[in-house]
C-alpha cells in the first residue's frame, strides 16, 4: 500500500533520514520504534508531505508522493496525527473534528462520522462545545486521533499517541488503536513505548540515527536480544 525506497531527508545541513526503506501492506499495523532523534517523526512528516525528500521515492498504491502538497496527500487517503497533538486550541472540539473532514463535501456523512468519534471517545461528546485547548492531555490525544479519522483515511499515521499520558490513558488509547485495526484500518505507528507498540503491531522497524537497523514481525523483534536490551530494558 505504502512504500518508501531509499528516502533521504535533510534539515539544512543535517541529514535526518539517511536512505530509509519501508513498506506497509493493506490492513497491517506497522510500528516504527527507536530513540529520540532517530528520524521516526521525520519519516511520517515526509509521507504526509510536510517535508520533501532530497532523494529516494515514496509511493502510495503505486502513485508517487514525493512532490505532492500535503492536502493532495490527504485527498489520497492518508491521514497524519502529529506528535504533540497539534489541536486547534482556540477552536471547539466539534470545530476540530469538522476540520478533520474539511475536504469532504458530504455534510450528512460528516455528521455521522463525528458521532462515530464521539462513540469511540464518549468524553469528547460531553465537551463538544469546549475549546480544544482546555481539554486534559488524554482528552486532547483522543481528539487528535478522532480528528485524524475524520478524513476517513485508508492509511493512518500515528505519531507518539502515548506521549505524556498516564498509564491508564495510554492503555485506553492503545485499546482504541486495536479497535481501529479490527475494523480494518491500516496504521503506521510511531512509538517510543516499544513494548506497547510491539504488542499490538504486526511488523516493526527499528530506527537509529536516520537509518532502519532492524525489521521483522513484531513478535520476533520483541524477543530479539538487541531490542530487548536497548528498547525493552530487560
Amino acid at each position, binding site marked *: 500500500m505504502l512504500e518508501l525506497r531509499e528516502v533521504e531527508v535533510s534539515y539544512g545541513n543535517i541529514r535526518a533520514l539517511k536512505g530509509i526503506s519501508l513498506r506497509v501492506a493493506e490492513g497491517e499495523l506497522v510500528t516504527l520504534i527507536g530513540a529520540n532523534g532517530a528520524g521516526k517523526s521525520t519519516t511520517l512528516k515526509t509521507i504526509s508531505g510536510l517535508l520533501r525528500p532530497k532523494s529516494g521515492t515514496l509511493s502510495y498504491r503505486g502513485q508517487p508522493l514525493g512532490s505532492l502538497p500535503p*492536502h493532495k496527500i490527504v485527498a489520497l487517503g492518508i491521514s497524519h496525527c502529529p506528535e504533540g497533538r497539534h489541536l486547534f486550541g482556540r477552536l471547539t472540539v466539534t470545530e476540530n473534528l469538522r476540520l478533520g473532514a474539511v475536504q469532504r463535501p458530504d455534510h450528512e456523512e460528516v455528521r455521522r462520522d463525528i458521532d462515530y468519534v464521539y462513540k469511540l471517545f464518549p468524553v469528547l461528546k460531553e465537551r463538544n462545545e469546549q475549546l480544544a485547548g482546555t481539554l486534559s492531555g488524554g482528552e486532547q490525544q483522543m481528539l487528535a486521533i478522532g480528528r485524524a479519522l475524520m478524513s476517513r483515511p485508508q492509511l493512518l499515521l500515528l505519531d507518539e499517541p502515548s506521549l505524556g499520558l498516564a498509564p491508564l490513558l495510554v492503555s485506553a488509547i492503545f485499546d482504541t488503536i486495536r479497535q481501529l485495526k479490527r475494523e480494518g484500518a491500516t496504521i503506521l505507528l510511531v512509538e517510543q513505548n516499544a513494548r506497547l507498540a510491539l504488542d499490538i503491531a504486526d511488523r516493526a522497524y527499528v530506527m537509529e540515527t536516520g537509518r532502519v537497523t532492524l525489521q521483522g514481525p513484531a513478535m520476533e523483534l520483541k524477543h530479539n536480544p538487541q531490542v530487548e536490551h536497548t528498547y525493552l530494558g530487560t
Partner: protein
Amino acid sequence: MNLVFYTVQQLVNALSIGSLYALMAVGLAMVFSILRLINFAHGDLIMIAAYFAAFALLAKLPLGVTIVLMLSGTILAGLLMERVAYRPIRGAPDVAALLTSFAVGQILQNGTLLVTRLLQKPNPLAFPVIGALSGVFTFGSITIPRVNVVSLLLGIVLLVLLSLFVTRTNLGLSMRAAAEDLPAAQLMGIDINRVIATAFAIGSGLAAVAGLLFAVQAGQLTPYMGFTPVLKAFIAAVIGGFGSISGAIVGGYALGGLEVLLTAIPGIGDILPPGLVSPRMQELLKQWLPSSLTSYRDAFVFLVLILVLLFRPNGILGRREREELG
C-alpha cells in the same frame, strides 16, 4: 452647542473613523495571523482603490460600476501581490517578508505616480465629488457628514459578515485553523495557498472600501496617502491583539474612540453649557485643556500605544504565542 448633541456627534465620528480603522486592521491581522507577515503594502491597496475609484468617476462611470471596478481592481492587486511577491519568499525569515512588503509598497506608489503622469492627471488629484456620500445629515441641531454615517454602517455590516464567514463557513474555519497552526492545517487537508489567497482577497476588498471612504473624506489623493492609514491600522491591530480578527476590530474602534476623545476633550471648556460646572471649573478647563492641545493628538495616541504594550504586551484581546510543528 448643547453637550448632549455634541456627545452624540462625537460618538458617530468615533464609530465612523473606528469602522475605517477596523476595516483596514482586519486585513493586516488576517495576513499576519497566517503568514507572520506585517504587510505594510496594505496601505497602498487603500491608495490604489482610491485611484481606481477616482479614474472611474473621472471617466463619468456610474457609482455602481465604479465600485465594482474599484473592488475587483484592488482585490486583483492584492492577489497579485501575494502570488508574485510573498509566495516565493514564504518560509523566509520574518524580516525578509517585512522588507518585501516595503518594496511592494514602493512599487505600487511609484507605479501609481507613473500612471497619473502618463494620463496627465495632476498630483495631488482632487477626488471627484460623489453625490451619495457628500453633504450632511441634520437631526435637530446635530449635523453629521453623510460619509461618516455611511462609514459607520458599512463598517459594521461588513465586519459582521466577516465574522459570520470565519465562524460559519468551512473556508473561514480553515482560515482560523491555518492562523493557529499552519502545518497542522495542512495535515487536515487544507490547501493553504487557497486560504492565504482568500485572506489577501478579503483584506484587499475591505481595504478598498476603506480607501473609497477615506478618499471622500480627504478630498484629494496622492500616491503616498496609504502610509498614515496603514500605520493607524497597524496601531489598531496591536492595541487589540495582533493577529486576531476580533482584536483588530476591537482595536480599530478603540483607536477611533481614543482619537475622537483626544480631539473632543481639548476645548471642552468652550462648549460646556453655562451652569453645568462652576465658572471657576470652566476657567480651569479652558486654561488646562485648550483646543490647541488637539494638535498633539497623535503624540497622545502613541503614548497610549506604549502604555498598552507595557501593560498588555499581547493587546487587549491578546493571547500567548503558539507552538510550532517542525
